[in-house]
């Protein structure tokens, strides 16, 4: 049974990882937090769904193209959030950025209700529903699909950050903005890029989970806070930490809910957050005495 719990924990955990990656990427690169991340997640799922099923005169697109449309939409939303909510408030203090982001999260959610209605829609499954059976363990092909795509996205991200000029520039700006400027790397470029890449990840997470979940305007709020916990668990701002934190949180939640009580599943996630912040604020893979949050 433990193995079953771990496997399903890994599936949800890989999605937590993507959202945690988005949080960590933005934190390490821009020193900001996008509290509307969950709504980016939601919006991408809706846009992809609309692209998949076609709307008005627009033709229905194949799955791959719909994913692309959704991810691009997410990155554009990220760009707007950065330019309206983060950049304008960067000098006024964290409180204002927080307020503006929260405003965006309400705005995106209520806009989604206006556009797509509040009843939610089913995202057509791309993968067979029939579970695979290995011994006494059942594995949903969908979960494997989610894990596979998440892993692929993380690998692509890794290559983007480490092998491309822009990705290296983003990392350089994350380490020392001033000196990066001296290399001719403009802050606005890397900051915008960071927000767009992070939003792509959050959007991809939303689209991946859409067939498993149901696409509703409210689907983002839970995932965003779980993503936070995962990012903090792994070490806020650390890229490998975000991946590890997400997977670990998924598994921990599942095991504790399975073995202790499911009623306190959320409390456990909160408790993990409080304990980590208090006793190991740098997280599992963060740098000790690194930058302060």
């Amino acid at each position, binding site marked *: 049974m433990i193995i079953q719990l771990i496997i399903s924990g890994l599936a949800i955990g890989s999605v937590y990882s993507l959202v945690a990656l988005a949080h960590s990427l933005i934190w390490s690169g821009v020193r900001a937090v996008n509290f509307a991340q969950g709504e980016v997640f939601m919006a991408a799922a809706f846009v992809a769904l609309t692209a998949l099923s076609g709307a008005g005169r627009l033709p229905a697109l194949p799955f791959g193209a719909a994913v692309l449309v959704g991810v691009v939409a997410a990155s554009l939303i990220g760009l707007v959030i950065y330019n309206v909510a983060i950049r304008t408030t960067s000098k006024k203090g964290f409180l204002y950025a927080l307020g503006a982001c929260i405003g965006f999260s309400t705005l995106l959610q209520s806009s989604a209700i206006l556009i797509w209605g509040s009843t939610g829609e089913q995202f057509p499954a791309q993968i067979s529903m029939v579970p695979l059976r290995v011994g006494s363990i059942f594995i949903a092909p969908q979960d494997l699909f989610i894990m596979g795509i998440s892993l692929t996205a993380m690998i692509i991200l890794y290559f983007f950050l480490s092998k491309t*000029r822009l990705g*290296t*520039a983003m*990392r*350089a700006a994350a*380490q*020392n903005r*001033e*000196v*990066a*400027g*001296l*290399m*001719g*790397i*403009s802050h606005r470029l890397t900051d915008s890029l960071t927000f767009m890449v992070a939003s792509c990840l959050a959007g991809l997470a939303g689209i991946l989970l859409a067939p498993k979940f149901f696409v509703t305007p409210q689907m983002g709020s839970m995932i965003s806070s779980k993503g936070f916990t995962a990012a903090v668990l792994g070490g806020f701002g650390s890229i490998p930490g975000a991946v590890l934190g997400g997977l670990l949180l998924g598994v921990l939640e599942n095991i504790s809910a399975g073995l202790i009580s499911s009623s306190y599943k959320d409390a456990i996630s909160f408790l993990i957050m409080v304990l980590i912040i208090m006793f190991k604020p740098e997280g599992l893979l963060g740098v000790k005495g690194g930058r302060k949050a």
Partner: protein
Amino acid sequence: MLRVQNLTKRFGGLVAVDNIDLHVREGEIRGLIGPNGSGKTTFFNLISGFDRATSGKIEFMGSDITAGSAHGLARKGIARTFQHIDLFKGMTVLENVTAAAQCHARPRFWSSLLGTPSVRKEDQALRNLAMEQLEFVGIADHADDLASSLPYGLQRIVEITRALATRPALLLLDEPAAGMNPTEKQDLVELVRRINASGVTVIIIEHDMRLVMGLAETITVLDSGSKICEGLPAEVQGNPRVIESYLGSGGVGKKQTHAYAAEPSGALDVSGASQNPAAKGQDSFILSVDSLNSYYGNVRVLKDISFKMREGEFTALIGANGAGKTTLLRTISGMMSPRSGRVLYKGEDITGLSSDRIVARNLIYVPEGRGVFPALSVQENLMMGAFRRSDKEAIKEDLEYVFGLFPRLKDRRNQKGGSLSGGEQQMLAIGRAVMSRPRLLLLDEPSMGLAPKLVDEVLETVMNLHDEGLTILLVEQNARAALSVAERGFVLEVGSLVHEGPAAQLCDDPAVKAAYLGG
């Protein structure tokens, strides 16, 4: 009254304060000097409880305070100011001082909430005490002004007043004169004397040597965390170890073999406005700086700086800590904007352009502290230098060229930048700048924190780069080393250019020593 024994503070591998013994008598004014990074402020932090010592003991008025908390020590009578002014900006001056005056008062929550007569009386007394302090210092007129609205010099004074309002027995002043003009400095000296006369023992960290030598009876000199000398001002001034720690130890020594005619450009104009920039043909100057004024907040750091550099020149800009050397380079490279004045690069006005656009013009700045990207590999660091270039083949060639210059970097090309030693990091920073194909290279304190042998090695490379035709503006605190490689030198003192001349001459100029050590 203060006895410090074997005090040591380590940050990771770095020993910031190394086994220091110090005794300060009651009623004394003690000067604490030393070059940048010598551990003076860390020492203050240890005494005032902001940092915990790794080992050693601090005794204050007979009791052991090694493990005291900062606020607890403030109540015990140790007050301090900060190197960078740290006032409560949103409060008025009176509120700032009153907050300190309540140091010894109990919170009295319920009485305060209800505003009982007794607490009101007590509050009035606190306010009166604060007012008295303001009057004592002579800034009572500003009591109701917002602290952040005051000129810089006054903010320093407010900070001292705030420290005084806690009624300390020991006052620690961390560079109180930084950014002050001569009159303000004179007033400060007066003030510190009066504070001392009222029975407060003072320890003062100060870079303005004239000021601290005139003020303190005894001076303690720190270098790299250790106490290297202690004595009367005159003794300290003449101590060879002190001079070495300030002016540097020597230099590469090959400079003399170069036969450059190091004649003055005639562009230096200490008085301010440069009268005839066109007279010498502006085109022949790669860089000309025209009555530049830069501020940090309210502090005027650069005062009407004007100078010119020809293409292919190797110029050293020397001066003591806080003279404004780095600010000048930051202003030229676009990291900060000047309040007034112009920077011309190859005849083009680049004043106020953002740094990435200045980089595009091949004016490259290697910042103080090297600015290596610690989590990027050596090769990635170098490639970032070529961020704006798209000529792949040439980048490859340049990479090989840099590896040729610094073979050590080639061996470590896949190591993280942060794992390199200080010298290697400096090489990396210079190599990275070379990757940008600079026409004019601004180097900021390449010798900082390096062992003498490495300083030589780094400077030698810089000389080689110059030999290949690169124009270089080198900023150094280590004056002797810098002057030994450069052709021409400028001396910067408290924001103004005060001397100019061929490097070899400046090297032996007593005025240069004076700019560093006062006198």
